[in-house]
């Protein structure tokens, strides 16, 4: 189930240097490598209907600010921070829309269960929420999450295990161990 497109920081550094010199294909490669993570970070915070558009926004902002990136190998953590800030701006600008979950009896929405689980994940503390979305929605594995977000592997492990425990309690109240 897990698909992994491992991006080594040294590869990122090379691509960042090329993108900064005007190579749009190089920036396109950076987008391909990190779009999934950025989408996960946004999906943990903003309505699903807006997350995809905001991914584009985040990368356009990143392109405009590429010269301010000091460590070329740290593109992942840097663009992750831009995504978190973009989510904060989203609510600051009042673009708050309700997420619709189809609960019509007898007419289950194909994404109904997904939205139910996502709503439960979003009710968790933000650190657990983001890591769980990256793992369960985006299919990234633990080391990949650590490498791309800049979190330590230990933090990712803790976030995943504690987050899963809380998620179990949310989804099956009274049944959690």
């Amino acid at each position: 189930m897990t698909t992994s497109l491992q991006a080594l920081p040294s590869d990122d550094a090379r691509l960042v240097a090329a993108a900064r010199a005007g190579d749009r294909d190089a920036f396109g490669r950076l987008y391909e490598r990190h779009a999934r993570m950025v989408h996960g970070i946004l999906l943990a915070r903003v309505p699903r209907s807006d997350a995809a558009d905001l991914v584009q926004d985040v990368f356009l902002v990143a392109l405009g600010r590429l010269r301010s990136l000091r460590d070329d190998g740290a593109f992942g953590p840097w663009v992750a921070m831009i995504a978190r800030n973009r989510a904060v701006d989203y609510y600051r600008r009042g673009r708050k829309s309700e997420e619709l979950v189809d609960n019509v009896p007898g007419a289950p929405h194909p994404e109904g269960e997904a939205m139910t689980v996502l709503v439960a994940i979003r009710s968790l503390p933000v650190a657990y929420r983001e890591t769980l979305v990256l793992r369960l929605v985006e299919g990234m594995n633990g080391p990949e999450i650590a490498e791309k977000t800049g979190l330590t592997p230990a933090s990712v492990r803790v976030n995943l295990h504690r987050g899963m425990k809380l998620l179990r309690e949310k989804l099956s109240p009274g049944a959690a161990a």
Partner: protein
Amino acid sequence: MSDYLWDGRGEPDPEVERLERALLPLRHQPKRLELSEVEPRRALRPFGGVLVTLAAAAGFGVAVAGPLLFARPGWEV
């Protein structure tokens, strides 16, 4: 078994597997990045180039005309 949650390797964790399958419709759908909307910094300051050209022209003008305007005549009448 991974120190992290089950990640597709080793013996499956049915709960993680079920959640992952349920959440699959929400996964990022790769989409081409449209870069044409933003043309780096130059696009944000469309008059920047014109201003630089005008400033250069003004500087050149002062350099050429200045000595003529402020030079004292070199002869006595």
